[in-house]
């Protein structure tokens, strides 16, 4: 059985490996190992060494108003701010707030779409981090009628 600790170790090793393999992406530092353990937004920003984010129109978040099934909530994040190196998808009331982190390289657009699980009605955040450590976000409340983390 693989514990969370092992997983963090192996993913950190992989991140190091990737950093070596991807010189073009190296301006985006490897994601802090503890980031996926953060239980609250404040914990997360602390573990990433980030300042308090600023709400910005340069970040867009597209998500449904009401998600009938919390197991599959389509989320689209995008940013038009210059110098964005990383985008995060956060769900405030999930057991761990950080859901996904995308590295933005010059070769791709700062726009990503995926599907996330939500345990309950919560604010969803799109966060854009720039090379000079400015942090912008957009948020939206998504109402969940059927949670996606039940057993």
């Amino acid at each position: 059985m693989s514990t969370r600790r092992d997983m963090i170790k192996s993913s950190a090793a992989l991140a190091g490996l990737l950093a070596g393999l991807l010189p073009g992406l190296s301006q985006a530092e490897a994601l802090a190992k503890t980031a996926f353990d953060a239980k609250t937004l404040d914990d997360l920003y602390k573990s990433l060494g980030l300042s308090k984010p600023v709400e910005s129109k340069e970040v867009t978040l597209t998500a449904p108003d009401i998600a009938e099934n919390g197991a599959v909530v389509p989320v689209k994040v995008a940013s038009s701010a210059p110098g964005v190196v990383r985008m995060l998808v956060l769900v405030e009331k999930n057991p761990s707030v950080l859901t996904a982190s995308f590295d933005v390289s010059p070769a791709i657009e700062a726009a990503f779409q995926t599907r996330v699980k939500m345990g309950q009605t919560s604010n969803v955040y799109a966060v854009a981090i720039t090379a000079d450590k400015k942090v912008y976000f957009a948020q939206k409340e998504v109402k969940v009628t059927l949670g996606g983390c039940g057993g």
Partner: protein
Amino acid sequence: MADPMRIRAQALNGNIVVKVLMQHEMETGLRKDANGKVIPAWHITDVTATLNGNPVFSAQWGPAVSKNPFLEFTIKGGKAGDKVSIQWVDNQGNKRVDEATVA
């Protein structure tokens, strides 16, 4: 070996739009089975993509990405006939690489 990904890469307005559907349980490690035992976490942690062998995209995921994850992103430039390759690695060390040709 896990099931293959479904990848669609399409040239659109001088860019390549890549859509990927991966086959993965994405178990959170929080759920319990019928006997009350915790089902261990099993989810994709890293996703990377290359265009004609050059790395262009990387992402780190937690367990809260949905089962059988969907991913869409856009590569600047590129043309039909280019090769887009996607790789994922999960927290148990499994990995899968699939390649698609840009249409």
